[in-house]
């Protein structure tokens, strides 16, 4: 099992190596200026000398990211459950939820800075807004996915709405909920970083990126992007691994060759 997982990591790793080699080659051969696109070797060099800075940036950003992710996903879930519980709330709340769907980050980030200050809470607030909608939509769809027969069974037990929810509809919704959790890992990453463009203490991955772009320190930009990509991928991978453990019963994990 573990061996297979490791083996699964080989192709993307090789693929990555090929991309990096090509990148290096093209940049060198075509003489692309560093301030447009630095070579991987230059980025690596910059990365190595900047580890303390990158680490400080990482911790600053991760605070807002995690707090926002948890609150955003949690509130999406809760609203979806509320919406699901009564038709009245569904008709009233769902359109409201849809309104939140595309509150553009560039619009809300400055407002959040004004409301919650320069430090990470305002970033968390942006992440909350970004992650809320995918969770809402997916959970609403997921709660619908229990089959009529499965619901009838609960009815024959005279189960309360709450029992039906916990014993049937939430488990049945899990594959959908995990979709949202996965999509939200990357949305949270984007949100936490981009929100820092609009006001922040002078640390953080988003701060670093925007500042270094202004300095044409593009190698540092890419070093930070590297941290973001690795963090984001690890976060996604973690959620995907939990998904596999929790929803092992879903056909997508049961089917041959899946």
């Amino acid at each position, binding site marked *: 099992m573990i061996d297979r997982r490791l083996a699964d990591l080989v192709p993307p790793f090789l693929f990555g190596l090929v991309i990096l080699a090509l990148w290096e080659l093209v940049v060198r051969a075509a003489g692309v*200026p*560093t*301030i*447009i696109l630095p070579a991987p070797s230059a980025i690596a060099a910059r990365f190595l000398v900047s580890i303390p800075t990158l680490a400080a940036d990482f911790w600053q950003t991760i605070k807002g990211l995690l707090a926002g992710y948890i609150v955003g996903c949690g509130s999406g879930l809760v609203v979806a459950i509320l919406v699901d519980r009564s038709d009245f709330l569904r008709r009233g709340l769902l359109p409201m939820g849809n309104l939140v769907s595309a509150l553009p980050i560039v619009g809300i980030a*400055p407002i959040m*800075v*004004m409301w919650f*200050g*320069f430090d990470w809470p305002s970033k968390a607030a942006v992440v909350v807004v970004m992650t809320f909608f995918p969770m809402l939509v997916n959970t609403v769809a997921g709660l619908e996915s229990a089959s009529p027969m499965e619901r009838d069974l609960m009815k024959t037990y005279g189960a309360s709405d709450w029992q039906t929810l916990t014993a049937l509809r939430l488990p049945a919704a899990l594959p959908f909920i995990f979709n949202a959790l996965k999509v939200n890992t990357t949305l949270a990453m984007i949100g936490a970083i981009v929100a*820092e*463009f*609009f*006001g*922040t*203490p*002078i640390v953080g991955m988003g*701060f670093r990126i*925007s*500042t270094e*772009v*202004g*300095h*044409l*320190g593009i190698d540092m930009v890419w070093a930070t992007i590297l941290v973001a990509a690795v963090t984001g991928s690890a976060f996604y991978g973690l959620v995907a691994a939990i998904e596999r453990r929790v929803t092992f019963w879903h056909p997508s994990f049961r089917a041959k060759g899946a």
Partner: protein
Amino acid sequence: ADNKVTLQLKWVPQAQFAGYYVAKDKGFYKDEGLDVTVKPGGPDVAPEQVIAGGGADVIVDWMPAALAAREKGAALVNIAQPFKHSGLELTCRADTGIKTPADLKGRTLGVWFYGNEYPFLNWMGKLKFPTDGSKDGVKVVKQGFNVDPLLQKQADCISTMTYNEYWQVIDAGYKPEQLVVFKYEDNGVSTLEDGLYAMEDKLKDPAFVDKMAKFVKASMKGWEYARAHPDEAVKIVLDNDTSGAQTEHHQTQMMAEINKLTAGSDGRLDKADYDRTVKTLLTGGSDPVISKEPVGAYTTAVTDKALAK
């Protein structure tokens, strides 16, 4: 013939760039036989990157950023300097008790980054206030587009331009006497703003120099016109605002302030201003913007030619 010129601005269309819009609108460029495209900038557009990537022939930039880019390999050369003065200032609420720069210690200061932080860092270096968050220093926050941090009391002082943010604070209900303003110029740390820059290799071509000369000449005519007819200039700027968000009131204010900054420049770069800027940048705090005296970072060839005509 090749008469196309693309100008990349540093920011969105506003009276700060009135000279160029006027020159285009009034046909001054056309009179010189040029076909000029004016590309607005924005908060995340780095003009240095645009020109290095071939997206523009000439850019409006602040000298610190331009010299930093030059060290990073984008060989920018100042070809003209329509702005004689710096409009950058630090604006504090008077009720914070800040009276002199020495009072800034321990305060929270809003600063623009994205290449605009150099003069500030230099100033703090001079004052020996560390900016890395350590004690005895100042607390720096990256300030967004607007003056809310001051109004919301999230910062004691914020960066403002004489021609824009300062008036937003005033419009928000503050009286001038309720504010304490430190102009960078008054504190000897001002750097040159809003110059015109082109790529060094292109300037080796006399034809290009010639084209730039025509461009600078027409642009300066635009600036003169803007000084003489500020109301008309504001109209022209507003016509070029695609977002439809600018107000005449605000742009009129800005035009007046900008005209103060361009007054006294015929387009030529004053060597003394240049030297002061370079010196400021070289002696900056712990992390100077440029590490060595730049060579060939400006040329008078273009302005000589433009003004000779």
